[in-house]
Every structure is written in C-alpha cells, then in structure tokens.
C-alpha cells in the first residue's frame, strides 16, 4: 500500500497475531473454528443451526407442551423443568414453548421472504447487469423506489386495507429485500462480464442463459451470502416490531414481538415475563449479524487476494 508503512509488510493487528499464534501452537484447533473466524463466529453459527433445527422439529421435542394452552399457574417464575424454563405468561402458557414455536414462525417468515427476494432480486439483477440499457435503469428505479420507503410503513398501509395477516408481511417484506439482492447481483454480473471465462464461454457459443446461470451465478454466491444474514436479521427485527405493534402475526399465534407486547402491561409486577422472547430475539439477531460480518470479512479477504 504505501512505503511509509511497515517495511516488512507485516500488519500484525492483534487478531491476526493471536490466531496465527494459536494456529501455530495448536494445529488441531483450526478444525474447531470457522476458517478465519473467531470464537464468537463459531458460537453464532452453532446457534443458528440450532435455531433452524428447532424451527423444523419443535413438534418433536418430547415433553414440550402446546404453546396455546395454559399448562401452569399464571406468571410463574422460571424453574428447572423443560416447560417452566422461562416461566409462564399471564394466561399460564409455557413461555419456553411459545419462544420455541415463535422461532418457527420467525424462521418461516425469514425463509420465505428471503426466497422471494433472492429469486426475484437475482433475476432482475442479473438481467440488468448483463443487458444494461433501459432494463438496468428500470431496475435501478425500482430499487430506489423501494429504498425510498420504510418497509414498516408499507406493511402498515397494507394492513390498513387488508387487515393483519402473515401472508401480507411475508410478501411485502420479501419484496422490499429484492432491491438489495438485485443491486448486489447486478454489480456482481457487471464485474464478471468482462472476465476471461465469460468471454471464453461466449466464444464457444454458449447461450446467454447458460452463461448467466452456470458461469456467472456461482461467482455471485459469496457476495450474496455476505448480505443475506444482515437482511435476515432485518426481517426478524421488522417482523418483531410489527408483531409488537399488533399488526404483525395475529394473536394467539406465538411471536416474539407479540409476547413482549403482551408482557408490557404486567412489567411492573412480573418483569421476568419478557426475559424469554427478549433473549430469543437478541441472540438471534446477534447471531445473524455476527455471521454476516464474518462472511463479509471473508468476501473482503478473497477480493483482496484475487
């Protein structure tokens, strides 16, 4: 970079130093960690895996009571049983159970919205980046229009007309993320379009579709996966806020935001009611953000090398 820097080209920031030293001292420890990541990155990854497992298989957890039926006394303190781990809410339902089922709801919304956004965003972005011209401008306009509105407001506008529903949230939030994915895809395609392998494929007579799907698309994956976790965290937060306001997932379905909202009345006497959903949301968002940072860092490093 400059000549006034370290003449040996070493940039020993403490993280690098520490990991280098650790790696040198304990060769086996590299298998325990995500490559190039720190301990918190691994913890975050494990947490997310657990979260996905819970979302998929919560029905099969033995001994877990239903999230909708009261099972104990009102507003009990947490104890060491499976269902009482986080206490009971004002109706007597197990908070722990509701948190786990809430995980399913949240993850479902995240999954479907992201799928919508990713597919549409990829499609629009790749076409815009490959063919440029008016189509690119249209896609830019669309992305800018999306950025010019807060998603929460639009969902609320829909709710004003159609009433709260899960489908509304999923679709609207999904549409809002299209812009970001499209922009990333477009930028990626533009930067890849002039690379040798693309020119070679075209010279060999490959169709545009084949080039886009089989040659360019795999190279977009690092950049896309770098932004995904951050957007997913945003989805969790937005859905949580909407449920908190009462316009998200309709009660009595368990949702973290909704649980927090219904606990606020009793906060003065039973402050621990919010413990469960708050921990769930904070850990989830934190895990997504951490993974997002890690992937972005990896992307940066890879780009710097190539």
């Amino acid at each position, binding site marked *: 970079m*400059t*000549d*006034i*820097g*370290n*003449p*040996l080209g*070493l940039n*020993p920031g403490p993280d690098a*130093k520490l990991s*280098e*030293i650790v790696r*040198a001292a304990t060769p086996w420890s590299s298998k325990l960690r995500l490559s190039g990541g720190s301990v918190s990155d691994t913890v975050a990854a494990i947490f997310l895996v657990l979260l996905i497992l819970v979302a998929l298989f919560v029905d099969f957890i033995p001994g877990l009571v239903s999230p909708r039926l009261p099972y104990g006394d009102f507003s009990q303190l947490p104890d060491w049983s499976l269902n009482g781990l986080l206490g009971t809410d004002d109706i007597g339902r197990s908070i722990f159970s509701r948190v786990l089922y809430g995980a399913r709801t949240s993850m479902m919304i995240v999954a479907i919205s992201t799928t919508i956004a990713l597919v549409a965003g990829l499609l629009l972005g790749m076409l815009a980046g490959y063919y440029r011209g008016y189509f690119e401008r249209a896609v830019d306009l669309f992305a800018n229009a999306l950025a010019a509105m807060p998603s929460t407001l639009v969902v609320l506008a829909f709710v004003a007309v159609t009433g709260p529903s899960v489908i509304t949230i999923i679709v609207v939030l999904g549409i809002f993320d299209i812009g970001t994915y499209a922009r990333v895809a477009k930028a990626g395609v533009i930067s890849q379009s002039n690379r040798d392998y693309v020119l070679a494929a075209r010279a060999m007579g490959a169709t545009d579709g084949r080039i886009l799907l089989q040659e360019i698309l795999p190279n977009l994956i690092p950049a896309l996966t770098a932004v995904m976790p951050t957007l997913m965290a945003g989805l969790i937060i937005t859905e949580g806020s909407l449920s908190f306001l009462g316009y998200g997932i309709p009660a009595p379905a368990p949702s973290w935001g909704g649980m927090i909202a219904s606990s606020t009345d009793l906060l003065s006497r039973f402050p621990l009611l919010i413990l469960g959903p708050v921990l769930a949301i904070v850990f989830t968002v934190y895990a997504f953000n951490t993974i997002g940072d890690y992937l972005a860092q990896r992307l940066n490093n890879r780009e710097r090398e190539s």
Partner: protein
Amino acid sequence: MDASPTSRAILSCSNMTCELDSVTGPLKILQDINFSIDTRRALGIVGESGAGKSMLVKAIMGIAPRGLRIAGKIELDGQDLSKLKPKDRRKLIGRRVGIVFQNPMTSLNPFVQIGQQIEEGGRIHLGLSHNEARRRAIELLNLVGIPDAADCYDYYPHQFSGGMKQRIMIAAALICEPDLLIADEATTALDVTVQKEVLDLLQNIQAERQMSMILVSHNLGVVAGRTDEILVLYGGNVVEYGPTAEVFRNPRHRYTEALLSAMPQMDQPAHTRLRTIPGQPPNLASRPKGCPFAPRCPAAQAICHDVMPDVSTGIEASHRFACHFPLSEISRLTPVEAAHVQ
C-alpha cells in the same frame, strides 16, 4: 572526529538498535548505528531497499511503527530523545526537523488545501497568526518555485503535478525554519529531469539557510556531490561511514565498492554491462551471526560469517568501516566527477 569549536552536532545516534516484534520472533532491523551530523553539514544515507534506511529515519522522527523497540541514544540538538516526554519530543522534532518523504502523490492530504498543509507546522509550533503563517507560506512557495503562489494557496493537491507536489512538501518542511532537513528518497518517485531540479533546490535551500541535511537514497548518484559525509547501510548495519569524497575515492568495504562500480559512467563505452552484486539482501528473520554482507562478499572468509567485524578507521580518522578484510587504500579515478545526473 574533530568538531570545530563553532559547530556542534545537530543530530547524533549512539549505538542505536531497532527491534520489531513479529510472529516469528524479534527482528533486528537496525543494529549498532553510530553517526552524527554537525550544523550546516549534509549527510547521505545509502543502502538497498530493506537495509533499514527508512526505519532509521522514522525512528529519529518518532513515527516508527508501534511495537518498535529502540535502544541506544538519539540526540537532537543535544537532547536525548528517549528521555523526553512524548509531547516535548514531538514539539522538539517538529520545530527543529523538516522532512520530505518519498511519495508526493500520497503525502499530501487530498481533502485539505495546500496552503493549510504548509502553514500548519508554523501555526502549531511557532504560534504564528493566520496572516503571518500565510505570508511565510507564500514566501516559501515562491522559494520552491511554485508559480502564482498567492493564487495557488487555496488549491487542492490534485491540481498539481508530482514535481510540484514535492516542492510543496519541501515548503511545508521549511515553515518552522528547521535546523535539519531530511529528504527520505525524496526524488525516487519523480521523473529524471525533475529529480535534478528538486535535488538542486534542496541543495540551494540548505546552503542559503545554513541548515543541516540528510539525503536518504538507494541511488549513490543522488548523494554524490551534494553531501559532506556518507553513511552506507547494509542489512541494518553501518558498513562504511566517512567524508563523501574520501569514501568515493577510497571505498574500504566491498559493498560500497560494488555500489560505486555498479553506477553507469559517462566515460564507459555504450552498452557496457553494468556490474551487479550477486545474491539477495539478508532476511532479517534469519540474520547470520557475522557480517551481514558475508554471503554475498567475494572475499568472505570463515570469520566473516561468524564474527561481526569491529569498526576500523581509514587514512582519515573520520572514515570508518566495518570489515575483517577491507580493501586496501588505493587511489582511483573518482567517479563522482562524472556528471551522471540520475
């Protein structure tokens, strides 16, 4: 070395050693550096990339990288720099020493007007008023040859060429009227014709203002004819140190001799193959015990690899070198007469 009663050393280094911690262990970047410069004298520091020239300059200026351990004594204007509080050291260096770095394209802040970048030293260290600082800065801009100085004052760096940027750097270095001016590879990044202009400018300024000067370069041609003394660095060690004319005429260390012979000369026939020094500069991580030049030295013996040579003196007491088997004293045609403009 005799110092005349009216002159004193503006800068002196005694047994200076610089070590940097790295993953593979401590690296000795500089070892046992001894030299001094008197007022109104010019010193040239030459060596290959990696010989430690830049680190030496940074250590003196107090901008060495974090984690650099400096042992030994550096004295500026008679004051031991290591004994000063950081704030006082910073003020002393800023006031007494001006420095011009290698890369004019990156040495100026592109977001700040050049006028401010010149005057800031004066305003901070000398407490100059806004108008006074501006006046002095414009004077300096004229001195270094920037046309329309008053108009250019509010321009941004990107509006100037590389050579002009370097002149601006020189002006900035002079704002506090320093006693010592350091030019660290100041002309390396410039065009050949511009190099000569800038070096001449530096020499003139030094003479006019009666400053001391250090010219750091890997290019012997830069220091030839412009310096009173020369210090040759190799692998972090001083291999030769003495009056420039004497060292050029009578190099005692084989590295110095090789450097001199590698310079193209006007009186050589065209297409003469230039002499090169075989081998690579030493890897500081695995530094050999003895003389750092031993692996590449054509006359190296067993002792050269094991024992670091002591410093011996030549005909003149001020000419010193570190070699077990130095070249003998022969007079030779001085290549310094040849006008090889770089």
